[in-house]
């Protein structure tokens, strides 16, 4: 991806997200508070974040790949279940990924 396209992506995404915020303060509440709209918006983050966890953790290009990232995810899940702070979760996941790389690389 060229530098220009990357910049266009960054700027378009940033402005779009800002306009979504501004819309909330500007449109009549009734538009947004329809039961179906509220239902979809409530669950979009779970669907997308679930997809991103899977894609980032288990795929490379078009292939399913099992490597240190999956071990990192497992460690992160345990740390999250034990209510560790975000930063600790990420450090543990990173350490697990590095360890797998050292042991198998």
């Amino acid at each position: 991806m060229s530098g220009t396209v990357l910049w266009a992506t960054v700027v378009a995404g940033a402005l779009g997200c800002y306009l979504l915020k501004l819309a909330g303060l500007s449109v009549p509440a009734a538009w947004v508070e329809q039961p179906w709209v509220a239902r979809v918006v409530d669950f979009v983050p779970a669907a997308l974040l679930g997809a991103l966890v899977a894609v980032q953790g288990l795929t490379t290009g078009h292939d399913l790949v099992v490597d240190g990232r999956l071990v990192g995810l497992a460690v992160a899940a345990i740390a999250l279940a034990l209510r560790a702070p975000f930063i600790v979760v990420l450090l543990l996941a990173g350490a697990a990924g590095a360890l797998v790389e050292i042991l198998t690389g």
Partner: protein
Amino acid sequence: MPRSARSATLRDAVGLGVAVGLYGAAFGAAADAAGLNVWQAMTLSLVMFTGASQFALVGVLGAGGSALAAVGGALLLGTRNTVYGVRLVPLLKPQGLRRFGTAHWVIDETTALSLAAPDRGLARLAFLAGGASIYLLWNLTTVAGALGAAALSGPALAALDAVVPAAFLALLWPRLRKGFPEAAVQRRVALGGAVVALALTPIVPAGVQVIAAVIAVALAGRPRARQEAA
């Protein structure tokens, strides 16, 4: 308003701001791993300023996705801020030009802080104090994370590769936990999203599987017949 309520609100807002703001380092690192330079990472934190969308944009690009898929993912995740805005209007009553500034800080954390405040005055204080501390720290740590990640090599790069999916899991986790509204349904939808994305990975252009995963929202079923105050 009582002094103690004021200082408790401030303490909560700044405390949350510091905890969340540090997370910007993970975003900066993820942006670097996806091929963005420091200026692009900074632009996202300064202008987009909504964590899940920022992570989604660089996550899709990092997976080799197109610009359209990356922006689409960020916007889909950004729609919840629209709903937050609607809920905040009666509390913050932003007038005239101030609406444009207020809108910039409408995110998960400032909404939660404002809605939890005992009255309108404290809601505004919580919004401003939480927004300011998160904005400041999130941007500083973004730069630190991006510069730090750019200097990594060898096993440290493998560590970074493992941090990015863990960061998404950490963003998702609070929605799955007991106590979140309809946590069991959230879990079903998250799992559905993951399955759809993995199933589509071999056949669709990179990044599209993430957008396509929104069909998993259908697993949530129809709206409940409830009219609770949001």
